[in-house]
């Protein structure tokens, strides 16, 4: 029980204060579009240079966990996900806000963060050794199929039509090919030097969600919600009971988030979307999803929080960071003389356990700080549209510029944003496009690498179809695709009379 003693270090007054500051700061940073968890942690690491290792890592852990949860705030209130991990939260969260239930949606989000986050951390603490070898088996072929499974979800994502979803996804994949390849130096579709570095995923995120929202606010001249419904769920016990009532959404979201979190390279960006999609498919009465169903918020937020713990398994167990955020965390660990790898807990147990303890306790603090924030949530939905639009626009420009200090990104963001606004008028949804931007490179890079590996010795087809993980993923892709195509037909048969309009 040595680790338990180390864990208790978190409760020392100074560490507890640091943790609270980190959580509050992380929630605010996470809520700013463009300031993703990766950027938040990267900005923070140099500040920890002068701190004691334990204190520094507690701060990093607190900010990492809370910036992911913070992204839900902007997703719900202004329909702009704080980071890719919060995309699925907009589907139902913002609809709830429009119905005047912003505070309630935020309460659901933070309760889900608590459940998913704690479950994910417990998986990391107790089950990590079981998964370490499994992680290593993900090579190019496996990663290619992970991306394909994700792409099959695009078709059924959002409330728009199947065809427009697929077209949007294809467009997103095309956007992801723009730029000069870091590995080989080949350039594609670079007609202005602003595009040399390609279109950063967070730039696309802001462009596709924030800018159309600005137009929409100016156009409708109405506040987000016409009136706030006074939340019945302001008492702690009621909040928890309400959220836990959605057992399927909570359980499935957590499970999917944890599984996707372990896979190196997929990361939290797709965990919440896959979690949302699975919950919607397996829930009864799923017609209300996308129209302000709390289960959507629960699924998305439990999935992205459950991802936090398992995503550290490749990093801590193997020294291999599975996501960009983990790569930044690796830097933070190294600077304090901690070398992740198989012997980590033997050599640095005194520092790494408080770090894990901080991540665990952070989930609890996020819940309480988050509930306080929730009380204020409805205020944002009552801000006058002009002021809110201006605010979003300012944050968008700052957020975009801060990603890589590149003015070109701001121009690209503005251009793509206007195009997306026109696209939404034509019945397209931003989510499939962003998913395409995320998954396109994973599919393509791994296909390229697999082709190189298969090249001289065997056939490319064999390489991409052998191995048990590959075959399971292929089966999942087929099932997901079949469901996407057949579900609308079943639904139409069951209810031939009512035809639901194609969303916005």
């Amino acid at each position, binding site marked *: 029980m040595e680790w338990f003693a180390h864990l208790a270090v978190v409760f020392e007054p100074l560490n507890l204060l640091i943790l609270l500051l980190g959580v509050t700061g992380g929630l605010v940073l996470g809520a700013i579009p463009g300031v993703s968890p*990766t*950027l938040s942690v*990267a900005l923070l*690491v*140099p500040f920890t*240079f002068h701190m004691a290792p334990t204190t520094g890592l507690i701060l990093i852990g607190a900010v990492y966990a809370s910036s992911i949860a913070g992204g839900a705030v902007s997703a719900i209130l202004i329909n702009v996900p704080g980071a890719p991990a919060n995309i699925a939260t907009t589907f139902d969260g913002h609809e709830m806000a429009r119905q005047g239930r912003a505070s309630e949606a935020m309460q659901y989000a933070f309760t889900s963060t608590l459940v998913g986050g704690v479950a994910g951390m417990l998986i990391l603490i107790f089950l990590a050794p079981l998964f370490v070898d499994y992680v*290593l088996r993900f*090579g190019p072929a496996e990663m290619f199929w992970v991306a394909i499974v994700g792409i099959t979800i695009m078709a059924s994502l959002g409330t728009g039509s199947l065809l427009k979803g697929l077209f949007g996804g294809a467009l997103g994949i095309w956007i992801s090919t723009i*730029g*000069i*390849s*870091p*590995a*080989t*130096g080949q*350039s594609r579709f670079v007609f202005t*030097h602003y595009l*040399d*570095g*390609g279109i950063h995923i967070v730039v696309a995120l802001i462009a596709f969600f924030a800018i159309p929202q*600005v*137009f929409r606010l*100016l*156009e409708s001249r109405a506040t987000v919600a016409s009136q706030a419904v006074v939340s019945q769920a302001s008492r702690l016990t009621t909040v928890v009971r309400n959220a836990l009532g959605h057992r399927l959404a909570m359980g499935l979201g957590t499970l999917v988030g944890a599984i996707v979190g372990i896979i*190196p*390279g997929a990361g939290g960006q797709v965990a919440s979307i896959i979690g949302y999609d699975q919950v919607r498919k397996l829930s009864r009465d799923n017609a209300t999803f996308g129209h302000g169903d709390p289960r959507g918020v629960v699924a998305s937020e439990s999935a992205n929080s459950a991802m936090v713990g398992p995503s550290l398994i490749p990093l801590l167990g*193997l*020294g*291999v960071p599975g996501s*960009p955020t983990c*790569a930044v965390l*690796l*830097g*933070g660990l*190294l*600077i*304090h*003389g901690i*070398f992740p*790898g*198989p012997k980590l807990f033997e050599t640095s147990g005194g520092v790494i356990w408080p770090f894990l303890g901080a991540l665990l306790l952070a989930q609890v603090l996020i819940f309480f700080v988050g509930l306080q924030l929730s009380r204020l949530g409805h205020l944002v939905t009552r801000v006058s549209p002009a002021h809110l*639009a201006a605010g979003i*626009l*300012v944050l968008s*420009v700052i957020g975009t510029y801060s990603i*890589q*200090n*590149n*003015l070109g990104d*701001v121009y690209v963001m*503005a251009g793509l944003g206007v195009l997306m606004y026109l696209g939404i008028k034509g019945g397209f949804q931003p989510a499939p496009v962003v998913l395409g931007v995320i998954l396109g*490179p994973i599919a393509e*890079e*791994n296909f*390229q*690498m697999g082709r*190189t*590996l298969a*090249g*001289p010795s065997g056939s490319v087809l064999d390489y991409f179809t052998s191995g048990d993980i590959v075959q399971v993923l292929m089966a999942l892709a087929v099932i997901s695709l079949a469901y996407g195509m057949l579900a609308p037909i079943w639904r139409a048969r069951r209810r031939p009379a009512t035809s639901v309009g194609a969303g916005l």
Partner: protein
Amino acid sequence: MANHSKAKTGKLAGLAALVVLIVVAAWGLRQTGSDGALVGEGDDYPDKPLSLTVAYGPGGATDLQARIAVEPAAEVLGQPIKVVNRPGAGGRVGWNWAVDSGGRDGYELIAYNLPHMIAQWTHEPSLSYNADNVVPVANWGADPAVLVVGKDSPFQTVADVVDYARAHPGELSVSGAGLYTGHHVAALQFQRAADVDINFLPAEQGGVQALQFVIGGQVQAGFNNLSDSWRNRDSLKILAVADTERSEFLPDVPTFQEAGVEVDDLSTNLRGVAVVKGVPEPHVERLAEKLPEVFRLEQVQTKLKNTGSGSLVLGLRETRELFERKTRAIKALLAQDDAP
């Protein structure tokens, strides 16, 4: 009806306001980006904070080392150095930007990575940066390439790898961090020296992914950084170091030359500070005098060691010689077979 057209004008006005706002905001950023074109000749340089452009993302090995290396700059130089990340396209975005739009007043520095930067401009003449406009100032770190195989690999020595590659031309899969990186240079040198043909896999996500493929058995071998391989030595076998002498981290691992394969230290990953040509010579000299002092500070050396990277502090003359030597060698290597 009237109401409708009113709404439409409102919409247009809103749109116009939006466009104006974006342009104004963007212009404001541009202004802050390139202020201070004044060249302060004289003794008071530097009299305001400097910036260091890192052409890779925050949190990566280069970024982390750069932040460590310049963090106490104010103590020695009198002014702090602020790290600015401009990542993209394997360093091309940041380095192109520095040469195309960066200042030449001595207040904007660039972090370089060799041999990557040199191999890029040798292979791609269309890049803005080249041997004529990048002026090296001081070097802080050196991280040699090593040949690694998985823990359970049948290969025990470099000779085993060479024998296998000879018997199976083009089949031995070897990973590294992208094309024209130090790892790729090492692989090209290895092919040449051992007279074999290997299947080089440039990992799209860089060196860490390349190492993951070796540990996971997706490739049979890999060229990778000594620092990262050393950290993961429990999951790997390190067969040889691409350097002229053994590493203090790995006293039992032979160099390639000791193992009978003529691969030298050309691929060693070197990191340091450069400026763009046009910076007044007195400023360059002052930087070259003070920066090595900063890099030699004990706090910098300890932290660099924590990241597992070897330190190599060089001043102006030595760094320039290093650039010239590497440029010649890379040109010769790439000219012989302008591979993939």
